[in-house]
């Protein structure tokens, strides 16, 4: 009879971590296909449809890139907080508040030129999203309130506040009762690049990605942040300003999600309406963990998960698969990746029992 024993590896496996990630993805996709089969949908056809819909044509890839923008920014933010072992689950609410901040500017300055309006929107969404990250940070530091629950409750509060605005004070009088603000003026809309459907938000992603990468690798504060995340107690003994780092991480984290909200309202929907909330903030957590908090990998992973969202739209249309299927896929990906990571620093030895 075979017996097995688990041992910790002396050196963590590096080469196989890609393989493990790939294996986890394949396993979660296979499990998702089983879920489809349970509902009587053809699993293989559905998966082909999913991938074709996501990456099969120039238009599809373009759509993936558009959806990857908000996911990337939220995820980049989430990753900063996670680096410090601060569990910011509030990207969804910070995204909503960023959209609200940007919309407020767009509604206040309808007649100004774009070079006044857009930078103001950028700044306002940064402040609004950052503010929504700042409060949980303060509550954590001053009152020891658990940031996971506070940021999560702040998601519900922000989304309800957005509902309140678009159903009430900000409702477009000529919207025939639909909950939405009036369309932004042309100067409040982030433009498209050339004759593609892509908007300049991608540039913002690239710049923030590089900035965060440089911040962690080459700046003193970035280093302190990483060090504190690895061992809080040691960081405090070493005299690192832990409280200030927490505030910085949470504000930056919220501000980046706020930018995602700004781009989605301005470039994609051109107004504020409840349908702007589609769970990017939660997808961002999956992406951040999948990418092991690395800005470059976050880019790749947000493209991949955006692809699943685009492909899922095809499944919805052609096979009437409910949108909730996306949650199943994302949850399974995260669970299998968590399990797979075990093999990076553990190995299993098989032995014959005597």
């Amino acid at each position, binding site marked *: 009879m075979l017996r097995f024993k688990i041992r*910790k590896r002396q050196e963590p496996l590096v080469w196989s971590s890609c393989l493990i990630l790939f294996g986890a993805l394949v396993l979660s996709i296979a499990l998702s296909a089983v879920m489809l089969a349970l509902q009587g949908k053809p699993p293989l056809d559905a998966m082909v449809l999913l991938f074709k819909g996501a990456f099969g044509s120039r238009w599809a890839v373009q759509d993936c890139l558009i959806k990857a923008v908000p996911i990337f920014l939220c995820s980049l933010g989430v990753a900063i907080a996670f680096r410090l072992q601060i569990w910011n689950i509030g990207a969804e609410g910070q995204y909503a508040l960023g959209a609200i901040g940007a919309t407020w500017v767009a509604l206040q300055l309808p007649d100004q030129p774009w070079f006044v309006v857009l930078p103001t929107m950028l700044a306002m969404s940064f402040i609004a999203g950052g503010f929504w990250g700042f409060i949980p940070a303060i509550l954590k530091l001053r009152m020891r309130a658990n940031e996971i629950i506070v940021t999560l409750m702040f998601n519900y509060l922000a989304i309800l*506040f957005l509902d309140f605005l678009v159903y009430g004070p900000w409702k477009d009088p000529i919207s025939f009762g639909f909950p939405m603000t009036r369309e932004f003026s042309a100067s409040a809309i982030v433009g498209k690049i050339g004759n593609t459907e892509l908007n300049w938000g991608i540039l913002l992603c690239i710049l923030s990605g590089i900035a965060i990468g440089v911040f962690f690798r080459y700046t003193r504060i970035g280093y302190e942040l990483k060090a504190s995340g690895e061992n809080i107690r040691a960081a405090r003994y070493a005299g690192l300003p832990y409280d200030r780092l927490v505030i910085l991480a949470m504000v930056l984290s919220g501000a980046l999600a706020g930018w995602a909200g700004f781009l989605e309202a301005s470039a994609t929907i051109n107004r504020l309406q409840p349908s702007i909330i589609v769970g990017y903030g939660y997808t961002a957590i999956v992406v951040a963990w999948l990418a092991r908090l690395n800005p470059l990998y976050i880019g790749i992973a947000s493209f991949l998960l955006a692809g699943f969202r685009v492909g899922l739209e095809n499944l919805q249309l052609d096979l009437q698969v409910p949108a909730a299927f996306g949650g199943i896929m994302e949850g399974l990906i995260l669970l299998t990746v968590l399990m797979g990571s075990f093999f990076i620093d553990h190995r299993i030895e098989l032995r014959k029992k005597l």
Partner: protein
Amino acid sequence: MSIEFFLPLLAAAVQSGTPVLYATLGEIFTEKSGVLNLGVEGIMMIGALAAFVTTMLSGSPILGFLVGGCAGAVLSGIHGLVCLVFQGNQVVSGLALTIFGVGLADYLGTPYIGQAAPGFNPLPVPILSKIPFLGSVFFNHDSLVYISYIIPMLMWLFFRYTRWGLGLRAVGEYPPAAIAGGLRVISYRWVGILVGGCLVGFGGAYLSLAYTHLWTNGLSAGRGWIAVALVIFAFWDPMRAMVGAYLFGGVMAFQLRLQAAGTHVPSSLLLMLPYALTVMVLVFSSWKGQGTEAPAALGVNIEPPD
């Protein structure tokens, strides 16, 4: 405000607090063993769906309730698999479980949206329900509410006076000592996760079988997360959990009544009340507490010995 307004409100507070109470008790049980399970929201949804579908197919709400609990235990078993076997991060695993569970319940429940199932109906306790005031507030409900009065006391006795309860607490406080004392720590944690998940599943089952009697997407609406917050409010004490749950039930019932009465306050602002109260209660109790009430090893995995 008159007694005619208050008595039904307090009774409604107990009823709408009950699903949160089951979920809070479940999470307390799991956290006492040192495992943080943030999948409560997803487990509640799966429990609610399993209970609803079983009841619809079999016609038996009791069977439905039990199946709801089992489904909760099975789903939380995934958390056990990730954290106890594969040493995964407990925070992230719980979040993944919520994303997965909410998605799965919405996905599998789509055909049942808007359908009704037989559920539990009020069953006044013979003598107790005649007590003025208290009778109509506490003893004029369905049988599941009465069960939820007994569970906190059982849990209290279990943690305080039984071998297994003490063992479970030891594993949550200081695993090395528990190992040295010869306890099978991983097994204890499995029990913590599965029994806790079962109670959370009961909370979900209560939602679909006794609270709404019908199925809608997003049925739990954040109650799972409120339960996680209430664990902190309750300082991991099952009896205090009752106070917290009924406080929330009260706010939810109050907010629903205001909406039904047709106030001028927009419903989106009224709906904020339970979430805002969660933040306030959490902040207040964390500030008042010593910061040492949580099981010391909460969220820390036990490494397999070499």
